[in-house]
């Protein structure tokens, strides 16, 4: 009896180990990586130019017909605390005292990633990465599981928790419906007096960003944030100080978030295929009694 049980445990251990090792050692290379739609638009955000006028917040509120804000958009007291996007504000600007005499402002909004985490985590396919570059949301299928909020490495999607009958995810959509579809820049880019944001094809903006750094190396940290982060984002940033100091996650992974789950998801069809035979086999081995019959051949127990 003991020998058989050990044998079975061994089978099980080997089976699980084999499955695990084969999964762990195989990389998710078969799928390749998505470099983005060729004509996808993007925005280059130059933090050194922002003066914190909040015109972008005002323009977004008007364009997207958002609810009335708590404070006027020319009220600078909002900079006392660090804000994030909410159901009423698709973009916010935060202020960072990076040195005694130096402040930097950072505009936060959806970065319209090339391989968005929100899209990858949505089980009803509510998100779409359009060929124009925007990551948009289909409110008519959203169940409200909020996995996208968990997944977004930038903590962008907000949820209208306060609505009893139709709570939805709220986030920047790159002014897709009203502007980007027609090739026009979003409202925030349009209104910005300092051209903090430069609009163009993402591929061109990557070159432009590096050109700007090269033209003025003393002014910028030599990094285009979002060029590679989580597989590349359409909204990219230039800064004069380390990105950690202005609220960015400096340790963010370069692989898109979906690559974190690819190995496990690949395991699923393996389990579905292997487990039936494996455990039926175990059953046959385990239940053959001395007469050579299996349990069930003797008739059912009550």
């Amino acid at each position, binding site marked *: 009896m003991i020998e058989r049980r050990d044998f079975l445990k061994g089978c099980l251990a080997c089976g699980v180990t084999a499955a*695990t090792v084969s999964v*762990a050692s195989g990389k998710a290379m078969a799928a390749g990586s998505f470099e983005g739609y060729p004509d996808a638009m993007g925005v280059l955000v130059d933090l050194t130019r922002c003066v914190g006028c909040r015109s972008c917040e005002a323009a977004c509120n008007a364009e997207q017909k958002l609810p009335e804000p708590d404070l006027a958009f020319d009220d600078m007291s909002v900079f006392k605390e660090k804000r*994030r*996007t*909410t159901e009423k504000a698709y973009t916010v600007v935060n202020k960072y005292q990076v040195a005694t005499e130096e402040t930097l402002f950072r505009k936060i909004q959806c970065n319209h990633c090339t391989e968005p*985490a929100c899209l*990858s*985590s*949505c*089980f*009803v*396919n*509510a998100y779409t990465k359009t060929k124009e570059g925007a990551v948009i949301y289909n409110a008519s*299928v*959203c*169940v*409200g*599981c*909020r*996995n996208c*909020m*968990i*997944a977004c*490495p930038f*903590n962008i999607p*907000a*949820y209208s*928790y*306060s*609505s*009893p009958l*139709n*709570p*939805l995810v709220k986030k920047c959509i790159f002014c897709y419906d009203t502007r980007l579809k027609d090739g026009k820049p979003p409202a925030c880019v349009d209104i910005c007096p300092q051209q903090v944001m430069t609009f163009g094809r993402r591929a061109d903006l990557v070159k432009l960003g590096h050109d700007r750094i090269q033209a003025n190396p003393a002014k910028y940290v030599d990094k285009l944030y979002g060029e590679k982060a989580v597989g590349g984002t359409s909204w990219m940033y230039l800064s004069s100080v380390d990105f950690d100091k202005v609220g960015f996650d400096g*340790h*963010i*992974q370069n692989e898109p*978030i*979906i690559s*974190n*789950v690819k190995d*496990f*998801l690949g*395991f*699923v069809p393996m*389990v*579905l295929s292997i*487990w*039936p035979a494996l*455990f*039926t086999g*175990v*059953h046959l081995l*385990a*239940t053959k009694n001395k007469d050579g019959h299996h349990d*069930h051949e003797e*008739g*059912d*127990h*009550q």
Partner: protein
Amino acid sequence: MKQFLTRNPGTQVIDSLRKDNDKGRPWTLMEKIFLGLTPQQYVSQAMGNPLNWIFAVIFLIGFPVLIGRYIFGLSWAVGDPYDNAWGLFLAFGLFGMVPLSSSGFQLGSAVEVFGRHDFEPIERLGILNGILGYFFAVVFLMVDLGQPWRLPYPMVVSWGPEAVLFLVAWHVATYLSVQAAETSTAFFEWMGWPAGKTFIKKMALGLAVAGIILSTLHQGALGALSTYAPGKVHPLWYSASFQWLYFFVSSLPGGLCMVIVVSTIALKTMGWRCDDIYKNSLSKLQIALAKGASMGLITYLTIRLIGIAHDNKWAYLATGWGAWWMVEIGFGVILSLVLLTAGIRNNSVTLVRMGAWTTIIGVVLNRLNVYMFTFNWQQGHVHIPPIREIIITVTVYSLYIVTYRAILYRWPILFKWKTRYSDYAVLEPKPVAIAEAEAASSK
């Protein structure tokens, strides 16, 4: 009920299809629901149970709050947690309860796949524990979802198959069906529908294997969900490569120990309902379960440590969060191992039962840590849920306990149904007394 039966010895609590030791007329459904007591007797014994008073208070406060969540919207119950989108309903109600409900596939497969029929006295309890846990996890989900009426959407309206949650949704739906089928044998016995029971029993092996497949995947998937947010879970609780294994492996001792805990509570509080087979075999079976649980726990401890070594996270152990990690592992895993193995070695079911408690607390604590307490740890503050969220969680969990108890009181889970159904005849031949009486009245 215990007190009622002590004061009224000779009361026959329903344990068969028919009155008078299965020789009289069949019990009606209402009689079965009241366990053979009159409604007045039943209510009076219920009022005499102090636990019911506690539940009454919980429900008096909790149901209005639960209804308020739907009338006023989620923010009335949980606030506006943008950064911590998942709160107590999911971290406890779903992520916490599901691993403890893995007893369904474990006990089902122990009996059907591995042929360990000696576990039959607690097989049904394990399966019931499984389905109730998953069912109430779905109830918690219905409370948490922004638009719960859209729950069927990932099945029939719009598919997002690359999402781990898609897998979870489909699996939980399928697995609930599997478990409903496995639980139905007890239900069919109780209702007196032997054809249903026969039908299900033919699929027993298939259901058990399906249960193993589905459970492996969704227990693992619940862990994989956290890999969408690698920067947000504390490194000591996170492994890019092994997260799904952490969750799957820890669900095994979690489910087995939950059976130990529930079967002990049943023995102590519902001894009148347990038959001699159950009472006499329970200690031996609990120690056997403890053997499985302790193997699961030592494996779990090993892979947690391997995970830390794999990404070289030892330095984190010296931080405040590291101390908390040691509390979770020390109490939930190491202390459990000590208690369980001491109980096994000394044949002490008391130690085993203590170890079972520390195990299930440890598993739930782990899920709360991954999805709530250490979530967004870098923001520097721990998210504490608002009071209404806590009230609703307690209310739904109490509903789970009350439902559990109601089923254990009635269905043949802790006892064998005295009416024996053969596989091919609908019922035993009518008792002679009834047949003669009917023949006489039709003349």
